[in-house]
């Protein structure tokens, strides 16, 4: 992999302001940030751009985050891409379901800052490389 090439993060988030903040934070740290505002677009964009990591909200219009997770994990060319679930759901059942569907990590948005998210993204990328 070209070390100078920016790594791509796909942020799937339907709330405009949260999406802008998260994108800004990751962009500031030198990532190539792509966004999707709903489930269908998320799956299509992921297929097209093959991101290095996906940050995924769960409550989305249309396809929800769980379905997106399922579809991406079923895709041969995408199934190795780590998916960080970043949602405000967070009951035990939600976490277990996301884990079962192949999420690499689960962060409850309100309990973390965007710096924490950045750390998680870097951590997942290091795991993939390592």
């Amino acid at each position, binding site marked *: 992999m070209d070390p100078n090439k920016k790594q791509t993060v796909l942020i799937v988030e339907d709330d405009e302001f949260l999406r802008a*903040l998260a994108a800004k934070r990751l962009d500031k740290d030198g990532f190539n940030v792509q966004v999707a505002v709903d489930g269908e677009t998320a799956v299509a964009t992921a297929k097209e751009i093959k991101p290095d990591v996906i940050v995924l909200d769960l409550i989305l219009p249309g396809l929800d985050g769980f379905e997106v997770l399922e579809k991406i994990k079923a895709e041969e060319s995408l199934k190795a891409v780590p998916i960080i679930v970043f949602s405000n759901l967070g009951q035990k059942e939600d976490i277990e379901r996301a884990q079962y569907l192949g999420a690499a990590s689960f962060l409850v948005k309100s309990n973390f*800052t965007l*710096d924490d998210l950045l750390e998680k993204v870097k951590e997942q990328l290091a795991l993939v490389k390592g």
Partner: protein
Amino acid sequence: MNSTVILLVSALVVLFHPFIFLWYGERKRNRKLLQIAELALPQEPMIPADEARQQLEAKDRELNAKELALSLAGKRLDKLDTAKFEFVSVTTHQLRTPLSAIKWTFDMLNKGQLGPITDEQKVFLQKGYESTDRAIDIVNELLKIDSIQEGKDNRAQYSFSNVDLGELIDTVAFLFTNQMKQKNINFTFNKPASQIIAEVDSKQMHVVLENLLDNAVKYTKSGGQITVTLSDAKLNSARSVAEIIVADTGIGIPEREHSKIFQRFYRSSNAVKVMTDGNGLGLAIIKDIIGNHQGEIHFESEENKGTTFYLTIPLQQTKV
């Protein structure tokens, strides 16, 4: 001839007169009884039947009313259940989303990620961030109560399965790694060499361990020690039990308050001072759950020295 007949009849009458008397008397009595009955009939005999019918009808109406009340209560419970579900989804998503936005904005501004700020501005931004975090804590606390309360005291709703207790403790302890690191609390888990498998409801036992560790972490000052010990010491010779001991070097429970500590909403006087926003439900819930596991819980505690909770649960549940 005539005289012979008269004689014969006389002889017969003489011979059978006791029977004739009896027969006559019987007839007379019967007639009298009939007369009494006839006298009584128009007023009396219909009333008991009527009354019985009326009573039956009343009972029937009562039962119908009860059935209706029950079905209404059932519907009301369903409605409450829906309301509760809505409450959870509202608090999780609708409240947490704007709170996240405020928190992140304060955090980015505060860290100068959105441009330089003055020291004075920084103080205000920090306060704003902390207030938002408090609001988030309240939301999290509300959600915790909700998830704890569902099925808390109904053993029928438990689903028992064989669970590796060591693994369960590891999972729960993992949730507190960051908090313990932040408070510089040393954590030790004395895990037995071999697995201890017990028949428990893993979700409920998760709640028990989470609450015990949460208390231990909350009420232990930085630099303290929390020790969890798991063993299958046969404390009760009649039944194989697992024992879990959670010991901390925290603020302890004042002795005069020992008897109240498992009461719902009760918080010890010193705990209230340390953490202002507890709900006083944790230990009451734990006691319910352990009871539903046919287990027992007790504790030893000394103020300013620490608290040790001992809980025992049978490896196998007996049918109830």
